[in-house]
């Protein structure tokens, strides 16, 4: 018997915003033609694409011609890293990045290293915050082509000191790429970046739409085979109906962001304090104050992460985990590893516009019993 579902994994994919649904359906009727062609249907599609780009640019605080749509946040991150490195290859071949970047950025870094480049990870502290001294030293070294810093951790919610990191980059003349997937549409964006990416399904847009913004004056060279669409930065036809839905829902999410932050941040605080108080032997991780308003992470000692996810799912709760047993590589999350915090029994809870106080209360009411039950089964009570 499964209980009524409570979806708490918005950091992976937020439920579609009603505005996204409306815009998607309208654009399926109206925006199916190729916007590059020279007939009436194409001009209509072109208008929709231009309007989507204009709206997205406005929300990000950039010019429309600085914005390209991609087929996911992952592709946007790949293009950001590899394109910015290619644009600066005469200056150097070193990529400096935080140790807690999303795997999309780390995999692009691996590709760069395989091609003969260098990648320098910069550590974070126990709360998951960038070591600014190490960062400043790393970006000042000779031959640095690009620095990459996530706006806020997708795994533990800690907001990164982007303004300070950007200042160090500016001093060193190094462009900064910010993966803002967890921030766009939720919190104000930091300044000082040259390249920024985001992902629509994090803010209630459809999956399969990413945003790549490259500021004027940034040397960026496409790492993909030539294609002139999307300013030459993303090859292939964009999924126009999904892009239209992404832009419309971004505008709606950004308009509500301050109110949503005010509503969700106290719920996150409540989860942090109640879990720490009511579940024995738990480590609540991430910065207690400098954090995203919608995401909270904790690890339960002696509990297997996958077993915990299944037990929560049976009670109707959908959450994520950075535990190794839940990853295909069988390695613990590199983020928890970099922070030096407990990696097993890990749960990430992330809230969205449909999350109510009652959902959070039900989760908090059931969690201690679920963890206690698993510990009793495993015979680890009292250790």
């Amino acid at each position, binding site marked *: 018997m499964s209980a009524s579902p409570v979806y708490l994994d918005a950091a992976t994919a937020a439920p579609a915003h009603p505005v996204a649904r409306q815009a998607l359906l309208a654009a399926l009727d109206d925006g199916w033609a190729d916007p590059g062609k020279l007939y009436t249907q194409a001009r209509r599609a072109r208008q929709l694409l231009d309007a989507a780009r204009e709206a997205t640019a406005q929300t990000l605080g950039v010019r429309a011609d600085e914005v390209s749509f991609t087929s996911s946040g992952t592709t946007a991150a790949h293009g950001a890293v590899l394109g910015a490195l290619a644009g600066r290859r005469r200056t150097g071949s070193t990529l400096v990045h935080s140790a807690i970047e999303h795997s999309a950025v780390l995999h692009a870094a691996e590709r760069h290293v395989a091609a003969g480049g260098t990648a320098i990870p910069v550590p974070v502290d126990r709360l998951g915050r960038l070591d600014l001294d190490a960062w400043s030293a790393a970006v000042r070294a000779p031959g640095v082509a690009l620095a990459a810093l996530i706006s806020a951790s997708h795994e533990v919610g800690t907001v990164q000191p982007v303004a300070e990191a950007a200042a160090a980059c500016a001093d060193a003349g190094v462009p900064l790429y910010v993966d803002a997937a967890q921030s766009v549409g939720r919190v104000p964006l930091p300044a000082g970046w040259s390249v920024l990416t985001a992902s629509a399904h994090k803010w209630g847009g459809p999956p399969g739409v990413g945003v790549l913004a490259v500021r004027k004056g940034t040397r960026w060279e496409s790492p993909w085979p030539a294609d002139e669409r999307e300013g030459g930065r993303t090859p292939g036809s964009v999924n126009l109906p999904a892009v239209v839905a992404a832009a419309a829902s971004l505008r709606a999410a950004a308009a509500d962001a301050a109110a949503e932050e005010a509503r969700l941040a106290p719920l996150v605080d409540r989860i942090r304090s109640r879990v720490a108080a009511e579940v024995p*032997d738990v*480590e609540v991780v991430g910065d207690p104050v400098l954090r995203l308003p919608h995401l909270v992470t904790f690890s339960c*000692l*002696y*509990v*297997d992460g996958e077993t915990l996810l299944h037990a929560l799912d049976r009670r109707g709760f959908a959450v994520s985990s950075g*535990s*190794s*047993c839940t990853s295909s590589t*069988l*390695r*613990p999350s590199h983020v*928890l*590893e970099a922070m*030096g*915090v*407990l*990696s*097993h*029994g890990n749960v990430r809870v992330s809230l969205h516009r449909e999350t109510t106080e009652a959902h959070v209360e039900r989760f908090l009411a059931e969690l201690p019993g679920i963890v206690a039950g698993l510990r009793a089964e*495993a015979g*680890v009570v009292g*250790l």
Partner: protein
Amino acid sequence: MPDEVLDCRGQRCPLPVIAAARRMPQVPIGTVVRVLADDPAAAVDIPAWCRMRGQEFLTAITGPEGPAYDIRRTH
């Protein structure tokens, strides 16, 4: 050198941490226990357990028997 060795090779996390947590209260204070564990999560979780339990994490080494973690019982 460790006073005793706890062989948790082949065990997936959290089992090595559980084994350490079971063993530590049974050894005299001051004893150094070496946990052999080849699950990559042990490298994070054994030091984290020591911090949460106030036990002393001495060192992580990789010897002929694979990755090993030395813990001293302090209380």
